[in-house]
């Protein structure tokens, strides 16, 4: 019993020292003053605590500005209204209905959609051209809302060394309530890599497909909306053209997504066409407001 206790204590001390040395490489416990101790404590707290909502929104704004700057924003009133009304009415059926989502259209023919932390969601003009029904549009928007609700980007950056290393920078800033600009820039760079260059994990993408379908079904659209969109990308999965290259490169293969969605629909007992798609209405809207 006594040996066990000594062993436990030893393990705890070792773990503490390991945490300490990982978080604070230059920490010298013998020469530390109480005020330094408080500062170090703050840094450790910042490094292990979940990102605050205000910080998430600040990061999302930076990423949104970069997405808007990189692709441009197509400010067509009719399409902006269409995307916003469908996006916004989905929000109460999402797993995170308590933040303010914003939707915009990227001025590019590339087929893609992005969601930045804090609810900044972008869909491309090229993707809109591929859609044949409101349920498909709702499916894509719901998928992006699910990424925000699941905090996929936030989780990735929190696990990154940028967040952990940035703790000391953040706490050095006089404003303890928010992030220091340098940390924000570093996190934006890391997030950009996840969002635009590498893509999120396969598991996160497949989960967003399922959650998106769930939100869509709760709202009352055919949950096969996202499925019908992804099916259209299948022929291009092995040799995508320029417009689809990034999308295919940053998402699981369309055939994998289709198969996983099928399994999910079966589990839920949903069959295609059981709820409206509003294809005719969407078709006439597209004819009335052609996408250049």
């Amino acid at each position: 019993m006594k040996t066990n206790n000594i062993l436990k204590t030893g393990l705890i001390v070792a773990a503490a020292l390991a945490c300490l040395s990982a978080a604070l490489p230059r920490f010298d416990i013998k020469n530390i003053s109480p005020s330094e101790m408080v500062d170090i404590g703050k840094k450790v707290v910042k490094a292990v605590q979940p990102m605050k909502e205000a910080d998430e929104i600040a990061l999302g704004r930076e990423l949104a500005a970069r997405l808007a700057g990189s692709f441009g924003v197509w400010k067509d009133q009719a399409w902006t209204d269409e995307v916003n009304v469908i996006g916004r009415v989905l929000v109460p059926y999402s797993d995170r209905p308590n933040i303010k989502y914003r939707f915009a259209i990227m001025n590019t023919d590339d087929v893609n959609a992005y969601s930045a932390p804090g609810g900044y969601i972008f869909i491309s003009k090229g993707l809109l051209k591929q859609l044949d029904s409101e349920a498909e549009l709702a499916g894509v928007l719901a998928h992006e809302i699910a990424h925000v609700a699941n905090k996929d980007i936030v989780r990735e950056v929190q696990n990154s060394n940028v967040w952990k290393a940035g703790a000391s920078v953040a706490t050095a800033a006089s404003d303890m309530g928010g992030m220091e600009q340098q940390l924000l820039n570093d996190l934006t760079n890391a997030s950009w890599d996840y969002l635009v260059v590498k893509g999120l994990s396969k598991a996160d993408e497949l989960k967003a497909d399922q959650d998106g379908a769930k939100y869509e079904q709760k709202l009352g659209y055919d949950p096969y909306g996202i499925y019908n969109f992804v099916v259209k990308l299948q022929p291009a999965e092995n040799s995508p053209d320029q417009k689809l290259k990034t999308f295919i490169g940053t998402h699981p293969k369309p055939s994998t997504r289709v198969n996983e969605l099928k399994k999910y629909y079966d589990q839920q007992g949903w069959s295609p066409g059981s709820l409206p798609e509003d294809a005719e209405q969407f078709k006439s809207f597209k004819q009335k407001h052609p996408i250049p």
Partner: protein
Amino acid sequence: MKKALTGLFIAALLLLPVFTGLQSLSAQEKTKTQQSPQDESSFWSMFRSAFSRPEPVQKSGKGVTQVAGVRGVGDDAKLKGKYDWESVNWMENYQLSEATAKQFLESRKLGPYKK
């Protein structure tokens, strides 16, 4: 005094992962147990609560506008430094009236107006 503080510090350090782990778990559970609106009034209450939230305090990019225009993602390296704050502000200031959303939902028989 110094020893006591050091001891306290180590104890806090050891308890921190437990505390933050619980906090994060409870936050996660909070997100996952969000109830979908069951009726018209709860739908609009949730809708209002999300979209009437105050705008974030803008910490960066005030007045800075650099628009790259239409580009592909192939030239990613070049794109990294381009920011368009004007469009972010436009996106944040976009207004959609509740009446428009209601009309949309009613016309499609969606949400609280499902058959």
